[in-house]
């Protein structure tokens, strides 16, 4: 192990680390908004919206992330425009993850017993009040663990950005590698950077899940 690689190229690694964190955060916000919208579609009273929501989640969940990223990276060129790797990659990540988040939110809402809704409605609450005061506060607790897992997946998945030159950790690792020719060491250090992000998150999720279980 040549630890000097880590110290000599710390700046390069950090540049990639920032790219990975930024892309993951942007994709998290984007996929959460999009995923919530799709989840609302899936439980809406309008059949066409339900149909669209189901089709969207089923289709996206069954195709590879890389394919979604390619659509945003190579797709615009067919119309004479273009997106850079970071933008296309982050949009692709957000769209891909939104399908999983939509499914998690839908399942969370479905897990709140129907009696709760009925009790709220017969106590005189409107549909919106029932949702915001009764159903959603209970659903959010159930949804947080799967959402946390999706965020960890998002961080790991952001590594596909490197395939479209998306300026992430893997991309900058390649720069270090072609400078040092020490592939083994270079990528062991990359692994450390990923673990710094993902291990605390996984641990936090586990603690949260255990706390949830204790309450019931």
């Amino acid at each position, binding site marked *: 192990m040549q630890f000097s690689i880590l110290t000599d190229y710390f700046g390069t690694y950090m540049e990639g680390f920032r790219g990975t964190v930024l892309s993951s955060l942007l994709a998290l916000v984007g996929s959460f908004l999009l995923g919530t919208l799709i989840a609302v579609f899936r439980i809406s009273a309008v059949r066409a919206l339900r149909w669209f929501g189901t089709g969207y989640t089923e289709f996206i969940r069954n195709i*590879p992330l890389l394919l979604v990223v390619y659509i945003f990276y190579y797709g615009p*060129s067919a119309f004479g425009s273009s997106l850079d790797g970071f933008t296309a990659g982050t949009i692709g990540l957000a769209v891909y993850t939104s399908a999983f988040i939509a499914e998690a939110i839908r399942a969370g809402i479905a897990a709140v017993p129907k009696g709760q809704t009925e009790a709220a409605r017969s106590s005189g609450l409107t549909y919106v009040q029932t949702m915001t005061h009764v159903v959603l506060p209970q659903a959010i607790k159930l949804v947080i663990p799967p959402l946390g897992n999706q965020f960890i997946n998002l961080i790991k998945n*952001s590594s596909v950005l490197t395939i479209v030159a998306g300026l992430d950790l893997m991309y900058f690792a390649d720069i270090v590698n072609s400078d040092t020719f020490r592939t083994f060491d270079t990528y062991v250090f990359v692994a450390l950077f990923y673990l710094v992000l993902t291990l605390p998150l996984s641990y936090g999720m586990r603690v949260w899940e255990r706390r949830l279980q204790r309450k019931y």
Partner: protein
Amino acid sequence: MDFVGAYSAENLKFLMEGLYITLFVAFVAIILSFLLGCILGVTRYTNIPVLSQISFVFVEIIRNLPLLLLIFFMRFALPEVGIKLGPVAAAITALTIFEGAMISEIVRAGLASVDKGQIEAARSSGLTSVQTLWHIVLPQGLRRMVPPLVSQFISLLKDTSLGVVISLAELMHNAGIIIGHGFNYTIPTLLLVALIYFTVNYLLSLLSKRLEAKNA
């Protein structure tokens, strides 16, 4: 957009060759990762001292790293320590290790979900602990593992697309080459490839539903 040109006999044949590699790599990796996952999962479930801790640490580290990093590592870092793997072998190794870690969690949780009373009854009927595991816990646990296992296998099949980073000649890699032949081919090719992945994965999920119905 040039659908006719993109779907020429030559291109379709090229994509089918890619699909063959995708399915081959996925099939071998599914079998190997299931075996690895069972070994790790049972080790953790039975709490064998030392081995259980080792497999816990192994699973935690692998699960929190991007698969892309592992694939890259198997192909380009291992030769530095004298292990040379071709693209197919490197992809299968990385997928087996990564998905095996994921599957071990499914196996462990599935076994842990078997009611304690079942084990106590079996032991007090005179079965040894190995007999109890084999005849009582495994058959019941396996049944509960089917749905998460199948969705993990679908993930695995999608993840074979990350083989592009080591020029594994699978479906996405070949699609990328066709896209490189002209902007007009981009959207028709991505559309077709998405449909192929969707069809294969959808068939897998239908299989899972049938298995579930049979077991219910």
